């Protein structure tokens, strides 16, 4: 069982930071929706307040690491131009564009993913900043809480779009190459 360093980075970017962000989003939306609703019966305790602040901060960190690794570590491998006569196998963008059956994965999938993903850190950084600024008082600012909720919801959709196309692109034309890491040596057949 082995994996190339580029595949490992893709895995860390998508399955690590991206997937973790998507998972974290659902809990943030529920927390903002239920506990910070002006109609909620139970008071927001200092523990709840601290939880939301650091939860959103952790999500912001995840979002930033996801877009930065995607843009500056993986994307250059994806868009690399092959030398004349080289096999397109190690050049995902060129491989996808080489056939009408797959070019849409780049022209729509990657083109949308590479931009929409950057809306995520903007939205969640704002949400974390508002949580740090207002804490439990967010319940007394329903319009502000609603705005934060909408931005977190849109960040969830944006991360979902980026994650979906990331997964499909990996299936259609994986980013691979670099040195090979041997994880486990299998039994001889």
């Amino acid at each position: 069982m082995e994996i190339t360093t580029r595949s490992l980075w893709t895995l860390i970017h998508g399955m690590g930071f991206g997937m973790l962000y998507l998972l974290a989003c659902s809990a943030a939306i529920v927390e903002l929706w239920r506990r910070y609703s002006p109609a909620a019966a139970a008071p927001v305790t200092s523990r709840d307040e601290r939880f939301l602040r650091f939860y959103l901060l952790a999500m912001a960190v995840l979002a930033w690491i996801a877009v930065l690794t995607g843009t500056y570590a993986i994307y250059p491998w994806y868009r690399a131009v092959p030398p004349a006569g080289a096999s397109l196998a190690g050049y995902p963008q060129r491989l996808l564009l080489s056939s009408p059956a797959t070019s849409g994965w780049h022209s729509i999938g990657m083109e949308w993913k590479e931009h929409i993903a950057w809306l995520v850190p903007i939205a969640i950084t704002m949400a974390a900043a508002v949580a740090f600024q207002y804490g439990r008082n967010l319940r007394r600012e329903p319009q502000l809480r609603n705005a934060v909720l909408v931005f977190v919801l849109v960040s969830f959709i944006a991360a979902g779009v980026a994650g979906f196309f990331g997964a499909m692109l990996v299936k259609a034309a994986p980013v691979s190459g670099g040195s090979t890491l041997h994880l486990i040596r299998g039994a001889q057949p």
Partner: protein
Amino acid sequence: MNTQTRPAHSSAHGTAAQTNGAGAAAVLAAGIGSFLLAVFAIVGDKSAAAKSFFIFSKPTGPLSGVTTSAIVLWIAIWIVLHLGWRARSVKLARINAISIALLVLAVLLTFPPIAGLF
């Protein structure tokens, strides 16, 4: 942006009266920053000069400049709005509507078939 007088409540730490201005600044800046990102992506795709300008990192290409420019402007706008509004209460309904409209536009404008219309 018009402001209105409304009762302020104590801050999260209970130390001073808290207005909604800082929150409104963060929300509006995020909406503007998102919209700028989508606009820069379209401009970088349509104009050869802009595409060349946006290459801040050669391996990443124009995406590096599109995103870095949008992020820098977003933070600058946030700081300016924060300094202007932090001690005030503003009409959040209007700011929310503008910010969410900008965010939705950003999502739509990053979609290549829509971006291709320009």
